[in-house]
């Protein structure tokens, strides 16, 4: 039982990370039909901004922003990624506003490669150990459970972010505009919704969520390389698709489903198959999509809009 509860906690924590990643991707997909491959590099950039650039490889990298007090680290990293996301929007996706979805996706691939190579140039290709918030890896003993503090923080922060985001979308004037634009962009523009502002807000939120993913996952992973964010974004994508494209609650539930599936496979697969855990996870994804092509939580409007 204790073992099972421990597994559930792991699943919830990993699921939180994927859900946040999926939300950042799903938000842009909902409004722009943009499958933003560069989301992974938003996450990587958040992580790399913590360490000193242009240093020789050392076992543990020297912290830069990461050395500051956490109350300064969090807003600074968020600001960096938000600026990056807004710049991407301004200089790449805004000029392509009327482009088709495949063109947008190719554009996001190029952004992804440019950012990845910039990271390579500035920080090198070697993996870097990053010792962020060491205290968070401490474990709390409770009723026989060993609970890493970071898991509690991850789940709590994710819950707070999701509640705030849904309140923002539900009640603020920007939220109503964003939701209207996500449903019928052309109609929203016709009614006078300022497209640039709505899309800017969506990119900023997407950047904020990418920063959150990086800051929450880094203390658990401990090491980063130039492609560190890509798998997190990939799982985010899969979560969006599994959840049902165009639905934010679907993206969140999709994220948790994948977190649960991967954690369970990790625990219950026979040891000789564990190295192939992700293959099993993706096989499950294919099964889900074959059985429910519109995802687990489809929206009625998806089919005609894509």
């Amino acid at each position: 039982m204790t073992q099972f509860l421990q597994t559930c906690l792991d699943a919830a924590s990993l699921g939180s990370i994927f859900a946040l990643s999926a939300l950042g991707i799903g938000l842009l997909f909902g409004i722009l039909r943009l499958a933003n491959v560069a989301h992974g590099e938003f996450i990587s950039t958040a992580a790399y901004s913590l360490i000193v650039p242009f240093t020789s490889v050392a076992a543990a990298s020297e912290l830069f922003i990461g050395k500051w007090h956490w109350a300064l680290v969090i807003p600074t990293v968020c600001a960096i990624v938000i600026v990056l996301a807004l710049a991407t929007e301004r200089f790449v996706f805004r000029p392509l506003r009327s482009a088709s979805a495949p063109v947008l996706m190719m554009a996001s691939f190029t952004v992804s490669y440019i950012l990845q190579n910039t990271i390579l140039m500035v920080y090198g290709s070697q993996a870097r150990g990053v010792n962020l918030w060491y205290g968070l890896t401490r474990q709390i003993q409770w009723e026989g459970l060993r609970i890493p503090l970071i898991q509690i923080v991850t789940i709590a922060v994710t819950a707070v972010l999701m509640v705030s985001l849904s309140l923002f979308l539900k009640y603020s004037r920007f939220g109503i505009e964003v939701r209207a634009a996500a449903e019928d962009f052309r109609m929203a523009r016709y009614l006078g919704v300022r497209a640039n502002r709505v899309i800017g807000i969506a990119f900023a939120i997407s950047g904020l969520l990418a920063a959150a993913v990086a800051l929450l996952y880094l203390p658990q992973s401990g090491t980063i390389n130039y492609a560190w964010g890509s798998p997190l974004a990939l799982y985010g994508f899969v979560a969006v698709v599994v959840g049902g494209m165009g639905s934010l609650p679907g993206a969140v539930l999709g994220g948790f489903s994948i977190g649960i599936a991967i954690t369970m496979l990790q625990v219950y697969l026979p040891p000789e198959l564990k190295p192939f855990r992700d293959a099993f996870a993706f096989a499950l994804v294919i099964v889900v999509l074959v059985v429910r092509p519109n995802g687990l939580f489809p929206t009625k409007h998806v089919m005609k809009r894509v």
Partner: protein
Amino acid sequence: MDAKIAEAGAARAAEALSVAGVTVRFDGLAAISGVTLSLAPREIVGLIGPNGAGKTTLVNVLTGFQRPSEGRLEIDGQDALGWSPAKVRRAGVARSFQAGRLFGKLTVLENAQVAAIAAGMSQRAARARAAGILEQVGLGGQLGQLAGSLPYTDQRRLDIARALASGPKYVLLDEPAAGMSDAECEDLMRIIRGLPDRFGCAVLLIEHNMHVVMSLSDRLHVLDGGRTIVTGTPAEVQANQAFLSAYLGAEVAE
């Protein structure tokens, strides 16, 4: 002094939504040709004609959705040719859509509210205005319901409310009574008849239901084959031979 009065008079004369000599060609075929129409503040004009007469094309020209091949578009004396639909709307010309195109996942209130917000109102003012309009079109009891779950006729009324939410001076209604029962039609007619007084806007009414158009319109504009065949009061139009033979030809022949 006289000059000032004359100037004011000229400004008033120019106060209208109008097209002059408008022709729209698709691949060389004219959908409408040489149509001239104007809508003055607070009047209700009926735009009628058989299917394919070019009514919706004309509405698209009047709202900036279709750039005409020839002709002029003016809003209160300003040349509006080539303006985007959003800019035409900001200038005070709103429309409803045949296909509705509501935001199905937003509530009834939010659908009207977003139009008011987008027109520049604060969140609170937009909410109050939207609620007030919805009350008047008879949707006051369904504010929290998702628009996508409304019955068809309620969706049409919500579409009208959304068009009104930005406080337009001219509102173009594209077949608002389509699919409505007689009782629902009466209800809709009461709403449309009240628009000039309650909302201070003029109405261009595109409608197939003769009873609705004839009893609501101050003036009628009849299109057939993309051309204007008759204009005038409902009585004048109904007495016109061209109208009878072209528009109701089949019925008259019987």
